[in-house]
């Protein structure tokens, strides 16, 4: 794979980028050769996306200046410094010689044109093809990214395609003019793991066939290990470490790389452990990595006690399509007969991909969503038997933490107001002075300071905001916290800190968590028991060890095999994983098959395929 002998296709030398007075990238150098994949890794704010936008010269439109450096690229007309070219020349290079795939496949296609029109447009623009020739080529491209029924797809609109299919269309468009360099900016971050595995496969195979150079921008060390030949680790706008992927994973030299790698949750790292473990964390202190925190077996679940929360045969459906006469014709079957218990002090994880109904279950328990059938009871009392005062009281005992810490705090209210809101709503403390003291104590408990109470959410980073959300959830002294993808939007090093915070709070307060996630590695680290959901039904349920060490349902195995492992020696051929996640939308009368569950070991349930 390594073509060190040949002249590099793209060579970035001493690049610096400034926005106004602030320097976002400082003295960055790296090079990419044909057929090679270079991964640029870093956490948010490290400047990795700005790097790719600078190569494309799209950063100009955001107001970037390039005070120093060169970006040498071997165009078809000979080598040129991209920083010295005018935008008109760059337009000829963009899309034709260098193309780009973005993170969000939902928004990067134009909703009012068909897929065929959009793919053909590029061919007409750059290669001057006629309409029929362009459409024929478009069909070939869609076949190339393994989209089934390509001819039919050409006439469809973006909203009729799933996220994974759209991202394949984006790849087809990016490769339409056989570019020499492809820049992929977090191309699989918004996708489910099984779909991510398919996309990575396609990219790798196409690279082999076409000899394209790829710059792969990501924050996910697992994806890096799967894809990259060379790695550039970026931190605060600087490349702190460069080298072959194997070297970086084997013997990371820079302290930052070491902390980053140690924070990545690795699937299988908990093998042989009965309980989740709180592990010390490597932190950077004065530029030196240091282990901080205690190691503790998280044996907090009290199975002898009565279940705190019981869910029995829960069914949630949404009516979506109506006929002309207002009769419902289609429904989303979000949750189909789901049952489980959560005991005090236990972390139960709900894992599944999009459309599995995992968030709907959480929202139904929190009374943000009505159940179609079934029963939820808390501390032995059924929700349907409760008076409205008791149901209100339940919102004190059960708290909900949302995925996006940027969206779940009111931008117009101070952090102190938001944290005090549950206290005031439930009338827990009356004097303003005591409330302020409590808020300060909560802020300090989650690792912030009392001075932060007077600030507004926009003044905080994502990790700090998630800490604020946790403080807010703790304010009413709950017994159960529902964490809905609460870690997904955070950088790995922050993620590791928050996982430890969750575990510490569980130890201190005997909290139970319903932990909703798509990330198998994080689930393995945190949970006592796991429920694997697929299209609204539990496919497998059991203690963490049972599900991760002896997965017994095909879907669980498939999910586990799709998770990228942060070790370049363990690259797997993921050809086995094909096909999209089916849609949970069904016509009325077309009920889904409900699988019976059998107990294959004490506490380990598996859905029996019909």
């Amino acid at each position, binding site marked *: 794979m390594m073509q060190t002998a040949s002249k590099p296709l793209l060579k970035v030398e001493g690049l610096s980028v400034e926005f106004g007075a602030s320097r976002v990238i400082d003295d960055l150098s790296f090079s990419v050769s044909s057929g090679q994949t270079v991964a640029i890794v870093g956490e948010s704010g490290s400047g990795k996306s700005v790097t790719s936008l600078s190569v494309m010269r799209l950063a100009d439109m955001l107001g970037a200046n390039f005070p120093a450096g060169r970006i040498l690229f071997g165009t078809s007309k000979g080598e040129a410094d991209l920083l010295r070219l005018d935008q008109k020349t760059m337009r000829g290079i963009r899309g034709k010689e260098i193309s780009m795939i973005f993170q969000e496949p939902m928004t990067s296609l134009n909703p009012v044109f068909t897929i065929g029109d959009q793919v053909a447009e590029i061919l007409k623009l750059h290669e001057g093809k006629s309409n029929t020739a362009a459409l024929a080529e478009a069909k070939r491209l869609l076949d190339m990214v393994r989209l089934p029924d390509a001819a039919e797809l050409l006439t469809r609109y973006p909203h009729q395609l799933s996220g994974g299919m759209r991202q394949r269309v984006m790849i087809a468009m990016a490769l339409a003019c056989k570019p020499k360099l492809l820049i992929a900016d977090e191309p699989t971050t918004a996708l489910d793991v099984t779909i991510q595995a398919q996309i990575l496969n396609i990219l790798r195979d196409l690279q082999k066939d076409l000899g394209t150079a790829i710059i792969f921008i990501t924050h996910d060390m697992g994806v890096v290990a799967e894809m990259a030949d060379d790695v550039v680790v970026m931190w605060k706008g600087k490349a702190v470490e460069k080298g072959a992927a194997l070297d970086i994973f084997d013997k990371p030299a820079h302290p930052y790389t070491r902390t980053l790698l140690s924070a990545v949750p690795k699937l299988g790292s908990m093998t042989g452990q009965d309980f989740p473990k709180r592990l010390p964390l490597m932190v950077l202190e004065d530029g030196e990595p240091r282990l901080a925190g205690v190691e503790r077996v998280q044996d907090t679940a009290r199975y002898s006690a009565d279940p705190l929360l019981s869910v029995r045969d829960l069914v949630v459906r949404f009516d979506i399509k109506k006929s002309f006469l207002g009769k419902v014709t289609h429904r989303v079957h979000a949750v189909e007969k789901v049952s489980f218990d959560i005991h005090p002090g236990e972390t139960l994880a709900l894992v599944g991909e999009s459309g599995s109904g995992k968030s709907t279950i959480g929202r139904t328990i*929190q009374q*943000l969503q009505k159940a179609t059938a079934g029963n939820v009871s808390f501390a032995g009392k059924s929700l349907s038997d409760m008076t409205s005062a008791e149901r*209100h009281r339940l*919102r*004190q005992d059960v*708290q*909900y933490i*949302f*995925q*996006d810490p940027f*969206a*779940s*705090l*009111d*931008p*117009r*209210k*101070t952090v102190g107001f938001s944290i005090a*809101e*549950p206290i005031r*709503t*439930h009338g827990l403390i009356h004097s303003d002075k005591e409330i302020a003291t409590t808020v300060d104590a909560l802020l300090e408990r989650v690792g912030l300071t009392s001075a932060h109470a007077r600030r*507004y959410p*926009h*003044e905080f980073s994502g990790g700090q905001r998630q800490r604020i*959300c946790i403080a*807010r959830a703790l304010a*009413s002294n709950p017994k159960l916290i529902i964490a809905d993808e609460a870690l997904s939007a955070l950088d790995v090093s922050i993620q590791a800190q928050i996982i430890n915070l969750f575990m510490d709070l569980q130890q201190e307060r005997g909290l139970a968590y319903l932990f909703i996630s798509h990330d198998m590695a994080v689930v393995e680290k945190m949970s006592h028991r796991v429920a694997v959901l697929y299209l609204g039904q539990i496919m497998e349920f059991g203690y963490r060890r049972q599900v991760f060490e002896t997965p017994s349902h095909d879907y669980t195995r498939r999910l586990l095999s799709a998770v990228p492992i942060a070790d370049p020696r363990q690259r797997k051929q993921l050809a086995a994983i094909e096909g999209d996640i089916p849609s949970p939308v069904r016509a009325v009368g077309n009920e889904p098959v409900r699988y019976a569950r059998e107990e294959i070991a004490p506490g380990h349930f598996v859905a029996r395929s019909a």
Partner: protein
Amino acid sequence: MASRSASSNFLKLEFVLGALLVGVIGIAVIFSGVIFPGGAEKIDLMSRLVPPFTKPAHIFGTDPLGRDVLARVMAGGKISLLVGFVSVAGGVTVGVVMGLIAGYYRGIWDMLVMRFADIQLAMPFILLAITFIAIVGGGLANTIILLVVSQWVQYARLVRGSVLTLREREFILSARAIGVKDWRIIVQHLLPNLIGPVIVLMTLNVATNILLESSLTFLGLGIDPTIPSWGGMLAEGRTYLQTAWWVSVFPGLAILLTVLGLNLLGDWLRDSLDPTGRTSA
């Protein structure tokens, strides 16, 4: 980053200019009776249509009946500003409440409010005005009510649209998850987050309403035409525009400066209510 002290907030150009304009005009209007006792009504047929800046007694000149234009502009502001402010305040109150209810509760409330709004939007203003005045009669109070009735729809639609996007946001969901009561969510979370565009629309509507009042008066549907108002003076001066521009230009200028001042104050208010400190267009 955006921590601004209270004093620097009041030193913004927008606030200083806006407060100055509105303040000077407001004081002039309120004390017009003291500065020109009975001046606005005093007819002096010997000095008709005196051009401005020629006689010290009539700095802004006189109108066709020899009344002092400056005195009339100051006195006329009373009706104009009263109608402008009160009608906008009424329209905002009704419209924002209706929009919040329709957007937050959806269902039957939404349907009732919005269908009613659609019907009203389909009706031309003049038709509405003639029907309304024919039924309840003219006068200051009824003119204001008419303007409120005709304008709440704009606010209701604007607010409802914002509520529909806001209510799906996670911070509203998380307030509901905590158990915060509906009215508190509406007042404490929804209202502060949608007030920006409402303020902008309000400042623009003050101007519209001053002019609408004058159109109504011109048609004989509004307030007693002998009471001076800016809109009324504009209409009167129209016939003399070729020969005596000052009769209509000075009341026009008064409207313009008032609206400019209010717009500046409105922008400042919107920005200072936003803790993120971004200055949006």
